């Protein structure tokens, strides 16, 4: 479960988040949609305090952290309950695929090398990267790197996994392999927060979509409701623009 209470984030003079409130239930898959600059990515980065919120309360499972009064210890706990999949993959460049997955298992969870290796193999196989376990990130395609990134996140057995536009930096023909891996992940029943521009994925996989604009949540609901019967003009406008683009592409 992830809960946001009145999250504010200010960069200099720019207020990016203006009081965000919503909750992602345990095992729920929530896609966060919205135009660029609406604060989706910032919100996701506030979840594990990569960007500490200026104000507000973040809860993951049983850890509640209030921005401004947070301690290193609390932030560390938040980060152990969640992992993140990045737009630019951010695999550790000095390690092989397998070492990437093993790293936090050994360093953070203090598992033995052997046990970590077995876990890493299991998750790499799950994302279809078992045969490339000894490759360095520079030797892998974007899609393959992202699948390793997902395995790295899953292997830690986190309460929630945060996807920050995981397909935005990929070549179009590689998007499919990552999305289908994410669908598999969604089936495992893990809590997922997904910032994405992939409307098809959101419609098909999400339990709920949250539409953000101008630093607040404008609308949320089941994908079918939001996509087919958006209530607010801003949502309608956004969806029209996006589907139009999709229409041209296909």
């Amino acid at each position: 479960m992830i809960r946001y209470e009145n999250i504010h984030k200010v960069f200099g003079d720019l207020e990016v988040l203006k009081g965000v409130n919503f909750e992602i239930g345990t095992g729920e898959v929530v896609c966060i949609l919205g135009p660029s600059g609406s604060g989706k990515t910032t919100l996701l980065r506030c979840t594990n305090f990569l960007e500490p919120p200026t104000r507000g309360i973040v809860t993951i499972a049983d850890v509640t952290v209030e921005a401004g009064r947070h301690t290193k210890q609390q932030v560390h706990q938040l980060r152990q309950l969640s992992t993140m999949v990045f737009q630019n993959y951010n695999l550790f460049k000095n390690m092989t695929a397998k070492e990437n997955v093993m790293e936090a298992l050994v360093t953070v969870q203090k598992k033995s090398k052997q046990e970590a290796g077995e876990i890493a193999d299991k998750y790499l196989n799950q994302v279809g990267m078992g045969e490339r376990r000894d490759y360095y990130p520079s030797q892998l395609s974007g899609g393959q790197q992202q699948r390793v990134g997902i395995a790295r996140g899953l292997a830690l057995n986190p309460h929630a996994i945060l996807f920050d536009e995981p397909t935005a930096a990929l070549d179009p023909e590689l998007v499919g392999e990552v999305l289908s891996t994410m669908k598999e992940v969604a089936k495992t029943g893990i809590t997922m927060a997904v910032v994405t521009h992939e409307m098809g994925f959101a419609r098909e996989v999400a339990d709920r979509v949250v539409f953000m604009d101008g630093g607040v949540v404008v609308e949320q609901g089941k994908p079918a409701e939001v996509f087919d019967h958006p209530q607010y003009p801003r949502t309608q406008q956004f969806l029209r623009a996006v589907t139009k683009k999709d229409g041209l592409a296909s």
Partner: protein
Amino acid sequence: MPLKRQTYFHSRSIPVENGKEKGAIILYYNFGMEYFTGAFAPIASCMHTTLIMTFAAFISAFILSVLLAMVAMTKNRVVQILFKAWLSLFRGTPLLCQLFLFCFGIFPLIPGIRDTPLIFQGSVCLALAYSAYMCETIRGAIQSVDKGQMEACLSCGLTKGQGYRRVVLPQAFRLSIPALMNNFIDCFKATALCSTVGVTDMMLRSKMLANKSYHFLEVYLAVIILYWALNMLFVLIQKVIEHKLDAKY
């Protein structure tokens, strides 16, 4: 080998093309081959001093510079000012002056260091000076590692320290190897300056030989060839290291 003082310079006048003899004088020098070849063995016998100073100074400068680079990245104002002053002091003054100041001025005042061998004192000076150069190298390398690498570490639950140790510093180290090797070569060459404060390295040994025999050309040619040969060796090692690391990732 007995060394005697001799006169080596002979002069003769040479005719100019149009036939008129002018008073142009060219000095002809009898190159004392035995002094040249004979100089290598005694100079090379001090090679270990040069090498020990080079490695001792470079390794301690490296450790110091990593610490300095970490310190430099903190946001504390006072620390920043002290750090800038440190850099400016060591990079903005001649190394020779620093050596004299430390070895003749400061170290004799400090009880623990007063009686240490000169080679140690010289190495400390070099380490201090080169840490200032190298810490800029290291800092640049750390900052050129993609920010996302540290974010990925944090998001996986690693602490900042673990992230630096396991991911950022290894990458930064690799990025900085060419520049560090340049620092190493500079440091190696700078050890010759320590001869001025009395460390019997290759340079001081050759100076003593030359002063004794008056065969300056032969002896200094020999010492410069020795320095150059060592330099070539280091460059070769650098190439091997770079090649090995390139093969990795």
